[in-house]
């Protein structure tokens, strides 16, 4: 797509002014990095970074049957969250394939905020609207809102004084996966990096001033490049890579987003998912870490005893881990040692349980490095 047809977030001019390397992403012109993706990654692990995630779609759902409706369309049960809490779950089709993964914030008894992947916005909204028949609900895209993710061990300390005064009491002592709302501002203690921090939804017009204030406070601007290495180290799935509408939550490590109880809740995809659970899914998600130096790439075949048992759905280099790491979809029960084919070489690797890194600390045992 020509650059002038790409969508621009309210911070676009500030990204250019900061020297960002821009790249197209899901129809948006987004910052990839501001000089060094690695420096931005390490800044989030050690201090604080801010990501412009205004390309992500926000939509509000309200009405007397909003709760009832979401209990039908989501595999996670919103009845489990109180007002002011967030739930990470999936939107499934009838075959239990994942239409999208999303965050749902409950803002009241019958009022919710959905945060959707940018690339899935149209598919999600069409699906949600198609499923509305018979439910008294109103779905309202909130395209006038922006979103900043402030992440890292220092994120909350640095961001708190910069939030509107009316929000400060609400964010003080905010638990993980909880949110505070004030007018059109919504601050959730959520994120996609494996670190503490906030996702701040706010009016687009207010976003540039908050961005600049965060930078002045010492928060480092971070691009989509660092967002990807951070989320990979955190073992977090990426739509279109680790999952899509041909993959069920049980096959990609997202079984925990499904709430089976109460048994009578008939969410879309439940029957197909229950049948797969009963039969045992034939494939599963696994983490892999290279035993030698190198970088892993999406799509690379994963082999055991010379036979391909799956492929990488995400691959890269973990800057905090210091190794090539990846997420794979492999035959159920796989474990131990494997090899990964990269170009014409087969590199030794081991299966591990993600996350690789959480809250700044390495969470997997690294096998000794071997030369190949």
């Amino acid at each position, binding site marked *: 797509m020509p650059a002038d047809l790409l969508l621009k977030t309210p911070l676009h001019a500030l990204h250019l002014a900061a020297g960002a390397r821009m790249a197209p992403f899901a129809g948006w012109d987004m910052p*990839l990095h501001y000089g*060094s*993706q690695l420096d931005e990654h390490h800044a989030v692990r050690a201090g604080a970074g801010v990501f412009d995630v205004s390309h992500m779609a926000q939509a509000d759902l309200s009405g007397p049957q909003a709760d009832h409706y979401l209990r039908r369309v989501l595999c996670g049960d919103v009845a489990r969250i109180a007002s002011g809490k967030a739930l990470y779950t999936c939107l499934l089709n009838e075959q239990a394939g994942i239409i999208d993964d999303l965050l749902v914030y409950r803002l009241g008894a019958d009022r919710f905020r959905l945060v959707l992947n940018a690339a899935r916005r149209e598919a999600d909204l069409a699906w949600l609207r198609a499923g509305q028949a018979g439910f008294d609900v109103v779905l309202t895209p909130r395209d006038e809102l922006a979103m900043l993710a402030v992440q890292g061990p220092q994120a909350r300390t640095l961001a708190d004084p910069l939030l509107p005064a009316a929000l400060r009491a609400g964010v003080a002592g905010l638990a993980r996966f909880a949110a505070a709302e004030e007018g059109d501002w919504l601050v959730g203690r959520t994120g996609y990096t494996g670190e503490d921090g906030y996702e701040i939804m706010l009016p687009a017009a207010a976003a540039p001033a908050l961005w600049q204030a965060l930078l002045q406070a010492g928060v480092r601007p971070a691009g989509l*490049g660092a967002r990807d*290495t951070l989320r990979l180290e955190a073992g977090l799935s990426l739509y279109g890579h680790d999952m899509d509408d041909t993959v069920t939550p049980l096959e990609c490590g997202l079984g925990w987003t499904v709430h089976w109880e109460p048994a009578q809740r008939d969410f879309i995809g439940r029957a197909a998912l229950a049948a797969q659970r009963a039969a045992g899914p034939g494939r599963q998600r696994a983490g892999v870490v290279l035993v030698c*130096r*190198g970088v892993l*790439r999406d799509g690379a075949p994963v082999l055991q005893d010379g036979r391909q048992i799956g492929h990488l759905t995400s691959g890269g*280099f973990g*800057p905090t881990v210091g190794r090539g790491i990846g997420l794979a979809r492999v035959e159920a029960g796989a474990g131990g040692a494997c090899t990964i084919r990269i170009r014409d070489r087969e590199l030794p690797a081991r299966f591990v349980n993600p996350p690789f890194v959480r809250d700044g600390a390495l969470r997997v045992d690294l096998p000794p490095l071997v030369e190949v």
Partner: protein
Amino acid sequence: MSQVPDTLRYTPTHEWLRQEADGSITVGITDHAQAQLGDLVYVELPAVGKALTAGDACAVVESVKAAADVYAPLTGTVLAFNDALASAPELVNQDPYGAGWLLRVAGALPPDTLDAAAYRALTESA
């Protein structure tokens, strides 16, 4: 603005070449190339003694996001590779014409390489 030293020769695929006093040719990737790739995290180099054919892929430089082939700018035999890059691939980003060199090759400097002015024109028009 990327650096293009006047003393080196260049290829359109962003390798640089330097003739050493002993006649060997040192090869690396240009400042422009490393900047385009971003932070390098892995470099795969050919073994000493390997025969290279001009134009063929001879090494791989990998940034966090992508892998890129390095093309042999000449036909010849690998005399040495920069083994510091195994543990410090970022040297290519930091010092592409110095500590970030890739290979030393026994062979003749090809006549069709670009001088600094021609390479500068190439990268500035891109």
